[in-house]
């Protein structure tokens, strides 16, 4: 396959970036999208050009490190798929592909396609945990949790923290990310004690980081590689309102 790539190049957070054109020949269908970028970088290095920096690690869709805006869509054209699991068989010979970083309120481009998502860690710090001490937990089967409850909590807990929801939201909102953690823990008996405090803390931090508000366009759910549902956002709002009323 022969491709025309338009890739965002930016030296650091403080300098403006731009799209740069590259012609790439010899791309194979079985290559993953990131292997295609490896292949491009190999060619760039050999011709004394600066390779393209991009985030990636596990390359099996679970670590949440990779994330590219491909032809205007977070993680590219396939539903429920992260960038690393996208393969070149989803493209055709002669295609032009736009490749940009995830942008959004509190995300900063650090170089080329690499971004700073540390705001997500700070949101978790603000309450995304159960305050249980290590080494003194009650017997696991002492808290029965029905099969469906556990599965439903898992659906929320499956978030990989990639930031596709923020990147795709016109408001740059982190509501899906934040609500998935609030909901995961609120659905489990162990997490209920702190549910309200957690919702207040995490939402305040989300706002403080500069993420936008959710206006229910549901684009995040469409682009989420783990297919996290927007009903998590409803649950987040419920927990938040409950906390405000009970306060």
């Amino acid at each position, binding site marked *: 396959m022969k491709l025309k790539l338009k890739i965002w190049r930016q030296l650091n957070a403080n300098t403006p970036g731009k799209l740069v054109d590259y012609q790439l020949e010899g791309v194979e269908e079985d290559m993953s999208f990131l292997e295609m970028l490896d292949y491009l970088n190999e060619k760039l290095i050999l011709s004394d050009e600066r390779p393209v920096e991009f985030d990636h690690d596990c390359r*099996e869709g679970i670590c949440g490190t990779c994330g590219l805006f491909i032809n205007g869509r977070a993680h590219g054209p396939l539903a429920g798929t992260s960038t690393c699991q996208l393969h070149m068989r989803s493209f055709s010979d002669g295609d032009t592909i736009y490749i940009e970083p995830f942008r959004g309120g509190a995300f900063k481009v650090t170089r080329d396609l690499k971004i700073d998502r540390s705001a997500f860690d700070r949101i978790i710090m603000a309450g995304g945990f159960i305050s249980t001490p290590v080494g003194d937990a*009650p017997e696991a089967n002492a808290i029965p949790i029905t099969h469906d409850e556990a599965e439903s909590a898992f659906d929320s807990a499956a978030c990989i923290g990639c930031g596709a929801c923020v990147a795709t939201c016109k408001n740059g909102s982190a509501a899906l990310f934040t609500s998935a953690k609030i909901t995961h823990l609120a659905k*489990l008996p162990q997490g209920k004690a702190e549910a309200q405090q957690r919702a207040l803390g995490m939402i305040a931090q989300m706002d403080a980081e500069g993420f936008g508000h959710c206006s229910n366009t549901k684009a995040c759910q469409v682009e989420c590689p783990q297919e996290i549902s927007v009903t998590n956002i409803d649950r987040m709002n419920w927990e938040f309102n409950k906390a405000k009323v009970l306060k």
Partner: protein
Amino acid sequence: MNLSPSESTINESAQGVPGAKIPKGPLQEKWSHYKATCRLVSFNNKKKLDIIVVGTGLAGSAAAASLAEAGYNIKSFCFQDSPRRAHSVAAQGGVNSAKNYQNDGDNVYRMFYDTLKGGDFRAREANVYRLAECSASLIDQAVAQGVPFAREYGGYLSNRSFGGVQVRRTFYARGQTGQQLLLGAYSALMRQVSAGKVELFTRHEMLELVMVDGKARGIIARNLDTGEIERHSAHAVILASGGFGKIFYLSTLAMGCNGSAIWRAHKKGALMASPSWTQIHPTSLPQQGEHQSKLTLMSESLRNDGRIWVPKQQGDHRHPNDIPEEERDYYLERRYPAFGNLAPRDISSRAAKERIDAGHGVGQMKNAVYLDFKAAIAEYGLDKIKERYGNLFRMYEKITGVDAYKEPMKISPAAHFSMGGLWVDYELSTSIPGLYALGECNFSDHGANRLGANSLLQACVDGYFIIPYTIGDYLADDIKTGTIDTDLPEFAEAEKAASDLLEKLTSIKGSKPADYFHKKLGRLIWDYCGVTRNEKGLKTAIESIRKLREEFWTDLKVPGTAGEINSELEKAGRVADYLEFGELMCYDALTRNESCGAHFREEYQTEDGEALRDDENFCFISCWDYQGEDKEPILHKEQLVFEETKLIARNYKK
């Protein structure tokens, strides 16, 4: 050139391996005795003590969170942009625990025995027993943190079976158990960051270990976002940097996984134990092309319901669905009737390689075998199979474009887990005082072969339940030491060594990128120090690695500088270490003239191709002592003593 390194058979602290510090008393009482008698640091004194933790996977996050909660000041480092991305996140299948919820005859002793036997009796009884003993607490801990393990309809925890055992003791969260356990540990860690007890350094890579007066007192790290070199001091340093299986280039590990932290500690004097023991996982997706960068694992849990087979006829080109039942060779069921498709990983990988080498491999590159769910779908129904493995089937389809509900998966062996690693004693201390190694980066519990679902367990147990006790025993001497000064000459020296290395890497200005060398090295290790090994091959590999290393240092091309974001420089540093590490792996395999677990020396096998262990001459852990660049390492031996169990040949046939 003399390729067999000098040996010493000494096991005393004065002359090689320090004592393993195994507590006296019956096996069942060793750990409780240790906990009851080890020295403690009082809560008020803990705040005077600093601990560095390198790595934020299960072992690192668990250790950092537990020690911070106990009152110590923690500095936590990871190269990823968030602690939650460490590679524990990718573990799929599950975590073992001797809860005996299924009432199928499980208990701590049986789990201990399964693990010891699975490791081919090349681990310490006391360590393995402790692992099984702490396993129940881990499930309690994880549930309390909100880990959504699979449940039965009545609300109680569900279990499944894994390779090498006959009970159901594996707890799981769909095919994302590692992710869920790590998110639990990560949340505990972030809670401590929030409480001001952990200082977090993401996007930082450890470059050097700093030693003062023979003790580990700090590290030199590079900020990967700015290129700045930083000095960090502490009273003790914990390495939890994971496995080094990425040395094979094509492996199930993440791209950033590396052996640099432990290798650099090894060069400062920490002994490296049995580095050649690498688990080759039997159920990975096969390589498809030249540019492939990683091999994706399909969880071993699939072997609960999937049947493995190859066509009886060599080079059979028919579609798998067109091959009738009687022309299929279910070789695991045939060779190992008692365990069948759930034979341990080393045995399953070798059996697959044997069939592939004999010309029965399937797929484009004839490098795979079939994993078939037809019978399970007929027995349990499509919905049940979807619920059990839905995400794995989806992953399979994304990568290969094939619907495995309709035709068998194609799978192949791939490098996966490092049983070897830094030598540690019972307290998880390396041979350098104040330097600890936790999780996959140490060698301790799995012997020569790790059982499925024991790696998450070991990482968690090391971090949550062991290090909080053992490190106190060491730090009790340090309560009056005061903060370690980073202006000490030892820090300046280590910083200079780190900067010099980066400068050296960027100034070669040759013609080949780091990946070129990594791929070549990976191929050598796979061919000669992989599923099977032999003397001639290992000697060839050692020579070839030396040549490749020379080429690396004269022809490497790293674009850019050390003072900026530079992924190519990060890779080059890791490959430089792998080029030395790989040679040691080959030495290790070459000097072990027996077959045990994942180490299968072709010269040492029975008539029907099973591993031939030599307990008389090789019942020891190989502990390697670094002697300097281009010098042969010295081999010390830690003799393994079995008081509780009788050494028997592993038999999964009946």
